[in-house]
């Protein structure tokens, strides 16, 4: 297709040179008319392939002879001097053709090299930030489709075997029966499929993603319309591309195992501090419950009614405390192990606040809580149960650590693309230097009023951070503390 177009262009240019020469035939000497043809050859050489421009060199000499050298319209020559002109013209034309073609090849090689460098640069910068194997593979496949202009799918292994189920595109563009070819490529680390020695009747070309130590998957390329991907330089680029992708996946995996080790160490650390906290916090209420219950059982007839009531009350209070503690421990462990799945949706903040306050009623014991929610507050994209738990924990802390007569305020407003929720009290305030520590697990304020396990605020922080928000404790003007939650405004 392309060579036919070039040939027609070459003929047209020689024709134009001929028309110009014929028109100027009477004004210029034939040797000068040869220059017009040479000009044409230069144009052809710049636009067309080497063979077309060489052919046009011969064509130009022939046309020059036929139209411009007397006698006209015949290849016969009256003056044999023209044989030198023809030879000179042909040599110059051929030199022009070959040199221009060589220059062009250089330029196009440079362009290919540049495109290739750019493609690999884009690949490495795109994959640098990926921490998950599948996401890395998906980015690589998308980029490959862009660079090679062909359909590309990457298949990844599942339980050690390559699987067409783990693939980067939604649709499967190759027949399922070719899974065995991909498996072969995965096992042997050699390419196979279209235009290779193995399974050349396949619908796609399968290239292994080979890293330094192992193969991580298989990249399948479907031929494009013009079969450009089978050009040698594209083939080479494809293989480098596959190699780079494998290296990126390898790095992702090693990063992940480093991360896993770190998490594992943290978990171990947490487990030991958990054990020490548990032994105290769980045993204390248990001791009261066991003590009170056994007293009631063994000394029932000797106890005054009032004492019995007291013991019963302490059983129920301590059981409740134990329940909260176990609940908090479970929540924290769930968060630590990544077992919490956010069920986010758009909620009016008013609704979440209302539910919490309504459920808090018994704990508040009639204490005033003012609510000041800005009008036109955007809906928040949150897990309603978890955000409710954050507010609950903050309000519960406030009721525990501030005098019963002091007021509590709950406010919300929008600021710089975030919804800010504040729980403010008029309590004794948080001692300077402890504002961050109180969010650490098992940290308990220096004041010995604290009776919790030091998990409420860490849970709050874990929940808020899971929503990509922040939570901090700030001293409040006029005394007291403001707990400020900032949630980015997001949509579904």
């Amino acid at each position, binding site marked *: 297709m392309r060579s036919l177009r070039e040939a027609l262009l070459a003929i047209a240019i020689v024709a134009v040179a001929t028309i110009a020469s014929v028109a100027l035939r009477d004004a210029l000497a034939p040797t000068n008319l040869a220059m017009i043809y040479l000009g044409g050859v230069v144009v052809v050489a710049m636009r067309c392939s080497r063979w077309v421009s060489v052919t046009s060199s011969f064509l130009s000499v022939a046309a020059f002879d036929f139209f411009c050298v007397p006698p006209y319209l015949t290849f016969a020559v009256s003056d044999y001097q023209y044989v030198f002109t023809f030879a000179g013209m042909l040599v110059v034309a051929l030199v022009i053709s070959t040199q221009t073609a060589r220059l062009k090849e250089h330029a196009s090689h440079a362009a290919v090299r540049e495109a290739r460098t750019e493609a690999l640069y884009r690949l490495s910068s795109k994959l640098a930030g990926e921490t998950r194997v599948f996401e890395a593979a998906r980015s690589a496949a998308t980029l490959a489709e862009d660079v090679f202009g062909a359909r590309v799918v990457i298949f990844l292994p599942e339980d050690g075997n390559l699987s067409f189920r783990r693939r980067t595109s939604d649709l499967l563009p190759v027949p399922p029966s070719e899974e065995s070819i991909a498996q072969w490529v995965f096992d042997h680390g050699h390419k196979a499929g279209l235009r290779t020695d193995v399974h050349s009747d396949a619908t796609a070309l399968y290239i292994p993603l080979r890293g330094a130590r192992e193969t991580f998957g298989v990249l399948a390329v479907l031929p494009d319309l013009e079969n450009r991907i089978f050009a040698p330089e594209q083939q080479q680029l494809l293989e480098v591309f596959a190699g780079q992708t494998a290296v990126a996946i390898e790095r992702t995996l090693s990063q992940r195992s480093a991360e896993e080790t770190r998490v594992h160490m943290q978990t171990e650390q947490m487990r030991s501090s958990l054990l020490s906290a548990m032994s105290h916090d769980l045993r204390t209420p248990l001791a009261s419950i066991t003590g009170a219950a056994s007293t009631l059982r063994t000394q029932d007839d000797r106890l005054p009614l009032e004492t019995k009531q007291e013991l019963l009350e302490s059983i129920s209070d301590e059981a409740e405390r134990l*329940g909260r503690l176990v609940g908090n421990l479970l929540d924290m462990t769930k968060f630590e192990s990544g077992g919490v799945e956010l069920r986010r*949706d758009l909620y*009016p903040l008013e609704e*979440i606040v209302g*539910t919490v306050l*309504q459920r808090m009623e018994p704990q508040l014991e009639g204490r005033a809580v003012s609510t000041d929610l800005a009008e036109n507050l955007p809906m928040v994209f949150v897990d309603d149960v978890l955000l409710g738990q954050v507010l609950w924990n903050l309000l519960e802390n406030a009721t525990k650590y501030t005098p019963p007569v002091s007021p509590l305020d709950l406010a919300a407003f929008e600021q710089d693309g975030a919804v800010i929720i504040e729980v403010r009290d008029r309590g004794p305030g948080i001692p300077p230097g402890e504002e961050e520590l109180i969010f650490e697990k098992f940290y308990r304020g220096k004041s010995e009023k604290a009776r919790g396990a030091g998990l409420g605020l860490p849970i709050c922080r874990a929940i808020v951070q899971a929503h990509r928000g922040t939570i901090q404790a700030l001293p409040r003007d006029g005394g007291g503390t403001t707990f400020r939650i900032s949630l980015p405004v997001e949509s579904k």
Partner: protein
Amino acid sequence: MKPLILLIEDDAQIRRFLRAALDAEGYRLQESITAEEGLAQAASRQPDLILLDLGLPDRDGLEVIQKIREWGKIPILVLSARGQEKDKIAALDLGADDYVAKPFAVGELLARIRAALRRSITRVDGAGSLVKFGPVEVDLEKRVVRVDSKEVHLTPNEYKLLQVLIQHAGKVLTQRQLLNEVWGPQHTEQAQYLRVYIAQLRRKLERNPARPKYLQTEPGVGYRLVPEE
């Protein structure tokens, strides 16, 4: 005769204290330890209410609800573990009437039992056309809503939502159930509509919409209209 309650629960300690509490309230009690036994007794004894633990040894509690709903409308009160919102929603969507999360205080359980029994009785009588809760008065026949004796205008969807909540007063309705009844089965995934409408209803009916007394949210599950006792 006193109402008969069927308790389907495998934990002996929980059965023990429930037996004491329900007995003290004067209810008659039938106990089952497995789902199979519970299903058989539900059919043969026709209890007035079923207390169902979801974590049974032989079968999923949700299956029990499904089976019972195939033939009857006996109120079912589910005893579920804390934080298992998914199970609660599934139980309610299958037709359970209410749930109590473990650990629970007996007082709360008894209140829920009373409410469920009352609902099953009034369902037979048919509710009157005039419903009152707090300052709100709804005339179901004339479709008129008044707050503090002043007429309040509700949009058709707001009214429909209120009507559904009144029909099931005291019962938790999941978001799916409400969306289905008000907007139809093709809209059951669009929960944010529902939230906007609930917020509007609260603004029109509640004294303090930020601390609703009647239109209560069950976090992660749905909504409940709590008429004043």
